[in-house]
């Protein structure tokens, strides 16, 4: 009797764990399928033209997305320029002085911003920039993405600066350094790899965002001059070309998706690589 029961329990044990392994394998299979599928379809429609030419009108074959690639980089530059200072300085405040009510509120605000759907971020940028200016612009898109960056950079900056041992701070102060020099030239450089990782991860996340750009940066079929005109971006191009009823455009959407995926994943993996090296050395 007992041995029978024991066998049944062993069997349940094996079955349950096989099931969990199955879940993991299934999910990893989805990842590899997604990567493989995009690579397969994207690579076949990728060409030099894609990187160097402007989009062609409907019906004309060929053309590329050079302006969208440049647009994505421009938007990222703006987003980083706007968001990273807030993230960095806010993170320094939280790590060094934030053990109080203000710190609690700021952390809470960062969490709220982190949870806001990206499309709502687009509405926010629309109401504060597009409406007063009267037209879509690179600036509005950059602000929408920049605000999305803040919570990720602020929390990672805080976390990694807190990892710096207090002894380091005390040693710096004991040498007569003023507090601000201690933070900027001793604590921050010690935590720099983690801080960099947080920023890169944040950039890689907003690089793939489409929704907040739909009615801020809007899109542009030509080269965009300056910062106050609408601008094209890769994710938006993937979207418009994917839902268009033209075979040519759908092909281009795959190519754009592949390039976008490459940018996002290499930034993501690069960031984790920096952190791993930083933590082991």
């Amino acid at each position, binding site marked *: 009797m007992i041995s029978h029961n024991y066998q049944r329990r062993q069997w349940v044990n094996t079955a349950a764990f096989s099931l969990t392994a199955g879940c993991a394998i299934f999910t990893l299979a989805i990842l590899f399928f*997604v990567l493989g599928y*995009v690579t397969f379809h994207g690579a076949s429609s990728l060409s030099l033209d894609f990187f160097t030419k402007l989009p062609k009108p409907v019906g004309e074959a060929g053309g590329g997305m050079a302006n969208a690639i440049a647009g994505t980089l421009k938007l990222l530059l703006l987003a980083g320029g706007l968001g990273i200072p807030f993230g960095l300085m*806010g993170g320094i*405040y939280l790590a060094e002085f934030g053990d109080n009510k203000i710190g609690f509120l700021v952390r809470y*605000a960062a969490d709220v911003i982190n949870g*806001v759907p990206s499309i*709502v971020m687009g509405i*926010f940028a629309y109401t504060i920039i597009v409406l007063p200016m009267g037209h879509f612009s690179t600036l509005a898109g950059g602000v929408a993405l920049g605000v999305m960056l803040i919570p990720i950079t602020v929390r990672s900056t805080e976390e990694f600066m807190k990892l710096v041992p207090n002894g380091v701070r005390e040693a710096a102060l004991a040498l007569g350094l003023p507090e601000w020099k201690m933070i900027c030239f001793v604590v921050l450089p010690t935590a720099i790899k983690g801080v960099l990782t947080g920023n890169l991860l944040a950039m890689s996340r907003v690089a793939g965002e489409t*929704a907040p750009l739909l009615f801020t940066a809007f899109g542009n079929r030509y080269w965009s001059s300056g910062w106050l005109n609408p601008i094209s971006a890769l994710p938006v191009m993937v979207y418009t070309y994917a839902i268009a009823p033209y075979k040519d455009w759908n092909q281009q959407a795959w190519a754009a998706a592949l390039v976008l995926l490459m940018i996002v994943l290499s930034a993501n*993996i690069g960031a984790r690589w920096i952190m791993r090296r930083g933590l082991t050395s």
Partner: protein
Amino acid sequence: MTPTTLTPQIDFQPPTPMSHSETSGNSIRLGDWIFRGLTLLFALSILAIAAGMAWQLFHSSVLARRAFGWAFLGKKIWDPVAENFGALTFIYGTLVSSALALVIAVPLGIGIVIFLAELAPRRLSETCSFLIELLAAIPSVVYGLIGIFFLVPLMRQVVQPTLAGTLGWLPLFQGPAYGVGMLSAGIVLAIMIVPFIATISREVLLSTPRELKESAMALGATHWEVVRMTVLPYARAGILGSIFLALGRALGETMAVTMVIGNRPDISASLFAPGYTMAAVIANEFTEATSDLYVHTLIEIGLILFVITILVNGIARLMLLRLKTS
């Protein structure tokens, strides 16, 4: 207020012989004061951004609130020509597609978590969770693209006919197989939120006290019984927190859903039927909204989405926080 009172943490003077003449005690304090003020300013502006966001959404949807009041939430009609709007179909679509995503993602996620924390050797576990995190890094629009060209045809030709054939007696699986619809949206969302459940819960499961597991094992429990009776109950709050975090993501997810859900403002019992979500209607109609009232209505939908996601994320944070303090 003098600068000295603002820097209470450091109450020592650098030894005078070591400091240069220009960095006397007074100017050190001034530098610290400026630096601290500057970081405080940036920190407070984060607070201001969050508050400003709420205020902007509220302020920019005033026309819609004035025109429709609370009835807006319960009205099914969506008629831009007559400017008669209601949000019910979108709220319904958002909730149902997210619920569907959870139904698929939660068992899958918990399965992965148990595998990662209990079965897989450390190295394999770390590689796997890294790869699963990559799943969360893939842009939403790429999922949408694969949804349109791979999942939707697959659903139309294979999955939906099969489901209708076997489970067709349920109202959930009746109706024509369009391919696009609630079910497709739920599946895409599920793939997008599984990483949240898996990677966050993994940390919690790995922190289960050894003694707890060892004592269960000493009583003769099999490994699975240890997991079921000690590890999972111990990690329950953390797993629930990660599920709510994932739900928050699913509710606000825009592009992938817009591309596969069918975008028809309708409420139907069938999961095959096309639906619409709050995020999708904003994405689709915002640039086409011609009148002020129309724009304000869409912003009000954004406001509702904002409030719902804040509540859901708040619950998630609360659960994960309680875990940390206990």
